[in-house]
């Protein structure tokens, strides 16, 4: 089915998220949508999907003008979408999530969950995901949740499919699988919109490329264009894509983990005898597939994990048993894996979010009182420095685009005097421009002589940022290797073979 968007305009209050955007996707075509964070990609797709009502412009399917009052109608018209922010019910099982909205039923509306399970199994086999239909979604790692989200979209075999940054949380293997799937679907004549910030993926699958900036279409690009060309087109300036960092000037061993074991709420062990150390001025990347213990490891470091044995020390101070506050006060900068849940208070303004873990510290607080003026000036400064796209420092965090939310968290954590930086997937969902910027910041932190721990699922990021790479698998460190270890070897280590 052919999809055409004509002169779509969408405003949020004063801000124009889409400005007369037009876009055509032919059947059997993968159309990539590129743009910086906040360019308006998701908004455009939400308009298409009937979640937002456009202020101007129209949507055509096979040249027929459509009017979508709600997603239901869009789905009925044959549009499927993988949302950037998961549209999953955490307390439901995978099967329940997948069938929601078009549930198979026996007599009198009684759910036929067996049929649902089979359907899920069949699909996840077809696409080489392994997913337990009875798992509670909320308890699954983000990567797996993403797969569920994808299956949800595929199951309704829609003619027009939208993938809004599906690969942000996928492993290299998963990404390759997904792109294979997209190619299958293209063969089958589906029209596909693919949003990603990873140019490698773009160049691999895209038939056509449209670039958005500040809500406007700035032009089309060809898959044959170089990554640098695409990048500069997106950002509107030249971007240096590969990280340039000098050799590390190693100081003393500042951060040490020894024989660390941890158990989760349910009482099952999640970390097994983890040992590692990071020198001042060094970046250690923890590479691995989502859900192999990285999350728990960072939680332990933060002091948020209840039951542990072993030793974790920073500057010869034992961290285990200390409260989160104490550990933060020791100089830990922490970028959580899930920014919306753990990193930001959605209803707070950017300014308020920027002091979340320092609200009672100088200069933001004097005695028991907060100093609004100081806070606002600080926010203004960070907004500029980190190029956070928002109406103002008074816009709430939940109004921000995914990328900009991440920037707020980074701005906050990097702007304290650090003794240790722990960042989970610091560039997840960021546009190339921002990635460049963030990487520079992290390296600056490292060169300022503090130990840095980065959790990465991206091999590129791992190899580019890391001075050493520790690969985790099933809660164990399967090996700590130099950064120039070939991708294939790393990939195998992450998969538990070798």
């Amino acid at each position, binding site marked *: 089915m052919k999809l055409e968007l004509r002169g779509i305009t969408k405003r949020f*209050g*004063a801000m124009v998220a889409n400005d007369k955007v037009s876009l055509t996707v032919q059947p059997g075509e993968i159309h990539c949508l590129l743009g910086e964070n906040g360019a308006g990609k998701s908004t455009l797709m939400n308009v298409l999907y009937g979640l937002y009502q456009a202020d101007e412009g129209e949507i055509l399917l096979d040249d027929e003008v459509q009017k979508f009052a709600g997603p239901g109608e869009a789905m009925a018209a044959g549009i499927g979408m993988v949302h950037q922010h998961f549209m999953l019910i955490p307390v439901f099982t995978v099967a329940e999530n997948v069938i929601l909205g078009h549930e198979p039923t026996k007599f009198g509306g009684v759910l036929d969950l067996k049929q649902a399970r089979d359907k899920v199994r069949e699909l996840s086999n077809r696409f080489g995901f392994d997913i337990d239909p009875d798992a509670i979604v909320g308890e699954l790692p983000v990567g797996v949740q993403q797969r569920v989200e994808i299956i949800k979209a595929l199951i309704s075999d829609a003619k027009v499919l939208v993938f809004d940054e599906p690969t942000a949380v996928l492993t290299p293997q998963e990404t390759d699988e997904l792109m294979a799937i997209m190619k299958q679907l293209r063969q089958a004549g589906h029209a596909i919109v693919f949003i990603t910030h990873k140019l490698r993926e773009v160049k691999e699958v895209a038939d056509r490329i449209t670039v958005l900036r500040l809500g406007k279409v700035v032009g089309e690009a060809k898959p044959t264009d170089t990554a640098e060309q695409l990048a500069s087109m997106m950002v509107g300036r030249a971007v240096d894509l590969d990280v340039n960092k000098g050799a590390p000037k190693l100081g003393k061993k500042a951060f040490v983990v020894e024989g660390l074991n941890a158990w989760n709420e349910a009482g099952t062990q999640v970390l097994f005898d983890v040992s590692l150390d990071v020198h001042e001025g060094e970046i250690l990347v923890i590479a691995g597939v989502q859900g192999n213990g990285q999350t728990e490891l960072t939680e332990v470091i*933060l002091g*948020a994990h209840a039951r542990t044995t072993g030793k974790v020390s920073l500057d010869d101070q034992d961290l285990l048993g200390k*409260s*989160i*506050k104490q*550990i*933060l*006060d020791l100089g830990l900068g*922490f970028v*959580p894996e899930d920014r919306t*849940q*753990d*990193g*930001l*208070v*959605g*209803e*707070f303004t950017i300014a*308020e979010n920027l002091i*979340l*873990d320092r*609200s*009672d510290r100088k200069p933001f*607080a004097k005695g*028991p*009182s*907060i100093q*609004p003026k100081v806070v606002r000036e600080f926010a203004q400064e960070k907004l500029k420095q980190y190029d956070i796209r928002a109406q103002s420092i008074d816009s709430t965090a939940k109004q921000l685009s995914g990328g900009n939310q991440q920037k707020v968290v980074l701005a906050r954590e990097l702007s304290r005097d650090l003794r240790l930086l722990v960042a989970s997937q610091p560039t997840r969902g960021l546009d190339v421009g921002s990635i460049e910027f963030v990487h520079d910041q992290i390296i600056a932190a490292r060169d300022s002589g503090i130990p840095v721990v980065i959790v990465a699922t991206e091999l590129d990021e791992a190899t580019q940022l890391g001075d050493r790479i520790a690969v985790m698998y099933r809660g164990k460190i399967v090996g700590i290797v130099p950064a120039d270890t070939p991708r294939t070897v790393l990939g195998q280590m992450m998969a538990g073979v070798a």
Partner: protein
Amino acid sequence: MKNNRIVREILNTSASTTVFAVLASFIVGGVLIAVANQDVQTAVGYFFNRPGDTFAALWNAVSGAYAAMFRGAIYNYNAHDFANGISPITDTLAFATPITLAGLGLAVAFRSGLFNIGANGQIIFGAMLSGWVAIYVQAPVYVLFPLAVLAGLVGGAIWGGLVGLLKATTGANEVIVTIMFNYIAVYLLGYLLKTPVLKAPQSINPVSLPVQNDAKFPLLFGSDYRLHAGFFVMLAAVAFVWWLLNRSTIGYQFRALGHNPDASKVAGINIGMTYILVMAISGALSGLAGASQILGTERVLTTGVAASYGIDAITVALLGRSKPLGVLAAGILFGALRAGAVTMQANQNVPSEIVLVVQSLIVLFIAAPPLVRAMFRLPKVVKA
């Protein structure tokens, strides 16, 4: 741009809609008043002979009732002199004092994501402790009075803080616990009023001795008026809560916790401690309401000392959007209704229940501007 949005909001939402909301609810209330009214009923009997009478009766009934409410709540223009004329408004403020204090307490909890409906119990505890001190402690005024007020504050803080403690340590849901604590407080007071702890020795009834004069809130305008210094305590509390929620670091943490406990935890906020603190402060304000009851107006402890302020406070807090000044305004409105109801009843024989109806309708309408605008064909607010 931002400014004239604010202007528009004030024009469209707050001010005018509020006025119309009150108007709307008075209209509905008026219908009930008319229904209940003798003369109207009689006049309707022969409506077709002399419809005029019916309308006359209608007008008399409704206007009479609301005029009476005005005289009872704001200014009594029938009074022979100004001094008596203004006494209603002072009554209104006297009623508003405890309601607003308790409302502020709940507002603090609500803004922190804790749904505290235990104001009733917390008022009672405040009143009990404050009352006990004010009755039995022998001390010079400059010790006794502050001590009595403090006791009320502490009483409420304990009863509220206990809920926070339970939530922090066991995760017990505060809604259940506060509901149960309300009943427990009521029966505990009932019990103590039968034991020498609180019961006046010479009385056969469950009442305490009156509080010592030194412990009372001084009357502001002499003995002819009921308004007492507790009113200023209330105003101070309004200011305090404003500072707490908008300017203080703990208030910031309260709100963070209220919106997103996970992020708050990661940011190093001690969740458990904050729960306890929130509930203690929330309870303390309700406890002050209890103190203003016993030291300001009641003077003796009875089982009914908390009146219906525990529930009123919920409405007042939410109606005031959990913002200090909003709560103050809502509190005064409720005070006025409580004060005016009596005159309406006494003078016009209007069933007192109508006040409850009017009161709740006002809240509903004020809370739903679009509805009111629709009812009165007001211009839509341009959503900015």
